[in-house]
């Protein structure tokens, strides 16, 4: 029997992976070949999708950008024995893009069948959970604290400290809420993990539950991710059937239940307190803090809120120990970061590496520069609220503090690459427009300021009273930064100001920009 892997990741599906899988099955039936098609996650080399892999004695051989109509020919010329062909890449794991990565959180993504618990365990799954069951809650929390793991959703808050607060708060009910709203443009790591290795997230959430004394978990997934929702629901069912979830987790005294909740098309619901409101069935209005959700969270109960990537790092930390995770990274950015190369990039996809690689190396060496072949003009890191950086920032090491030093923000680790055809006044205008569209409406600077921002930028570009309008824009940015309750209004000035500072000519500016 020959095993053929065809990813079922949404990115692969978007390039025709389902049709390819079907064509392989059809052709095998027609020719009486003994073939099993496994639907794996994606390896994260998205420019190669659909990437078909064939298991051989030497390892898994890859074929890039396969289309359904190529299948008869590919099979006739020996695809099933891994023979060479124009689209043949050789051994997938020997490809530079993959070989040079440190896959910890993404270790199994693309390798295993996402819905096979057997595969999962055979590749190191459930080891962390078994260790956790044998530990005291306080020891689990210490382990996570010692690992140096910081929140991957944007703010970079130490996960262990958050967990400790929830652990030390008495309550009859506590919750683990996974933030899978992943609204930032340029980010897709959460989606790929949920589709490609959902048991890792489930295991991380159970460990969090045991650590803080929570028996109920919720995963808030955006509605734009129908496939991830489907895979998660299937994985949860399988986990229940195998007693990984339920009243006695792996036969222990711990119980943990898990439910998927779906968003409804609101960016601000990724903000943690807006997410809580949404989980309570209400409008996604941001809550004032304090109280912090760790003390007063979902339905007023102590709640751990963590991003998918944060929770997915936990099983490995518990399996291999805090020291192992902590050994990666630089300064106060420990462990690995799952970078996402997006936009106008030659080799777009997932790059998991220890913190510390320079921005330039990431974009140029790993990503290969732009897809269009034109020079890079700018990159936006950390989603729509993140700053634009120019090529003069190529030497900046990728880490929380190092990026902050140059006015940037790591956010969820997405990097959007733009070539020299981009007009930065348009990008600044879009940032304001997006804020106006997605604001929850609670604060005036965010709600009204962003609408004014669009108008002021238009006037600057039109050359109307530029000096006066630049001053007005600066005032607006200041008011938004200082007078907004959350980062939606508070950080929108970041892309606006950085675009203006780096590329004043794009705004048609004739006066000097401060």
């Amino acid at each position: 029997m020959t095993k053929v892997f065809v990813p079922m990741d949404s990115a692969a599906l978007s390039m025709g992976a389902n049709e390819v899988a079907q064509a392989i099955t059809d052709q095998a039936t027609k020719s009486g070949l003994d073939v099993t098609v496994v639907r794996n996650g994606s390896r994260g080399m998205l420019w190669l999708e659909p990437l078909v892999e064939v298991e051989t004695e030497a390892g898994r051989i890859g074929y890039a950008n396969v289309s359904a109509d190529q299948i008869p020919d590919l099979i006739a010329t020996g695809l099933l024995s891994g023979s060479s062909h124009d689209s043949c890449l050789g051994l997938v794991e020997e490809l530079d893009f993959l070989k040079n990565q440190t896959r910890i959180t993404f270790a199994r993504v693309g390798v295993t069948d996402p819905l096979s618990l057997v595969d999962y365990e055979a590749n190191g799954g459930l080891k962390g959970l078994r260790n956790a069951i044998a530990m005291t809650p306080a020891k689990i929390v210490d382990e996570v604290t010692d690992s140096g793991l910081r929140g991957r959703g944007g703010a970079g808050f130490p996960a262990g400290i958050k967990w400790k607060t929830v652990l030390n708060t008495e309550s009859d009910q506590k919750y683990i809420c996974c933030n899978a709203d992943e609204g930032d443009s340029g980010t897709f790591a959460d989606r790929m993990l949920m589709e490609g290795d959902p048991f890792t997230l489930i295991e991380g959430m159970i460990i969090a539950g045991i650590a803080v004394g929570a028996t109920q978990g919720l995963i808030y997934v955006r509605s734009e991710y129908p496939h991830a929702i489907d895979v998660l629901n299937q994985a949860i069912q399988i986990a229940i059937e195998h007693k990984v979830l339920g009243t006695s987790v792996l036969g222990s005294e711990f119980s943990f239940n898990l439910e998927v909740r779906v968003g409804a098309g609101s960016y601000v619901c990724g903000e943690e307190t807006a997410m809580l409101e949404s989980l309570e069935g209400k409008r996604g209005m941001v809550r004032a803090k304090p109280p912090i959700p760790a003390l007063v969270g979902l339905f007023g109960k102590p709640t751990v809120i963590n991003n998918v990537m944060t929770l997915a790092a936990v099983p490995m930390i518990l399996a291999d120990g805090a020291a192992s995770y902590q050994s990666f990274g630089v300064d106060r950015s420990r462990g690995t970061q799952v970078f996402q190369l997006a936009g106008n990039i030659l080799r777009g996809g997932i790059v998991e590496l220890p913190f510390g690689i320079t921005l330039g190396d990431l974009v140029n060496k790993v990503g290969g520069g732009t897809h269009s072949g034109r020079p890079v003009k700018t990159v936006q890191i950390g989603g729509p609220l993140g700053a634009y950086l120019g090529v003069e920032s190529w030497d900046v090491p990728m880490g929380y503090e190092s990026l902050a030093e140059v006015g940037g923000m790591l956010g969820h680790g997405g990097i959007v690459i733009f070539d020299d055809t981009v007009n930065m006044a348009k990008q600044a205008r879009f940032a304001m427009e997006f804020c106006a569209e997605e604001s929850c409406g609670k604060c005036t600077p965010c709600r009204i300021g962003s609408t004014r921002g669009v108008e002021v930028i238009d006037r600057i570009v039109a050359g109307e009273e530029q000096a006066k309008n630049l001053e007005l824009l600066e005032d607006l940015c200041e008011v938004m930064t200082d007078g907004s309750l959350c980062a939606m209004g508070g950080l929108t000035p970041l892309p606006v100001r950085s675009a203006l500072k780096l590329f004043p000519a794009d705004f048609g500016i004739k006066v000097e920009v401060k």
Partner: protein
Amino acid sequence: MSNFSEESILNYLGPYKGDGSAVLRSLQLVQELLGYVPDSALDIIAKNSNVSRAEVYGVFTFYSDFRSTPPAKAVVKVCVAEACQASGSASLISELHDKGYDIHKGNIKDDIQMEQTFCLGNCALGPAAMVNGAPIGRATCAKIFAATSAVTA
């Protein structure tokens, strides 16, 4: 689409009876069933969840997923966010516009409706689109209309 009864909706909403925290899920369920949320469903949900109609209406208007009129047979979501802008979404959007589809208005033409969305999580293969939930990478007009004709046929 319009032949639903209060009773049949209430049947589906059964598990949420008296649960004030289920307003959002109730709206989602109705939209899943009918394709949109008719005005009368707001009252039914309010009654079932034991909250005011105003509260249900507030939730309904907050989230951009909800529609008050039936959707076209094929709903195309086109990404307008930054990574897709960097990959040429603007020219795709203007080509679609030339074919009579305004993604900002979401007008229906020939059983097809196109709407803007902010990021579909396929940002390395932009421009990204989605047709009735099925993703399309490196989207072109040709790819989009091939997908729509498969569902409108």
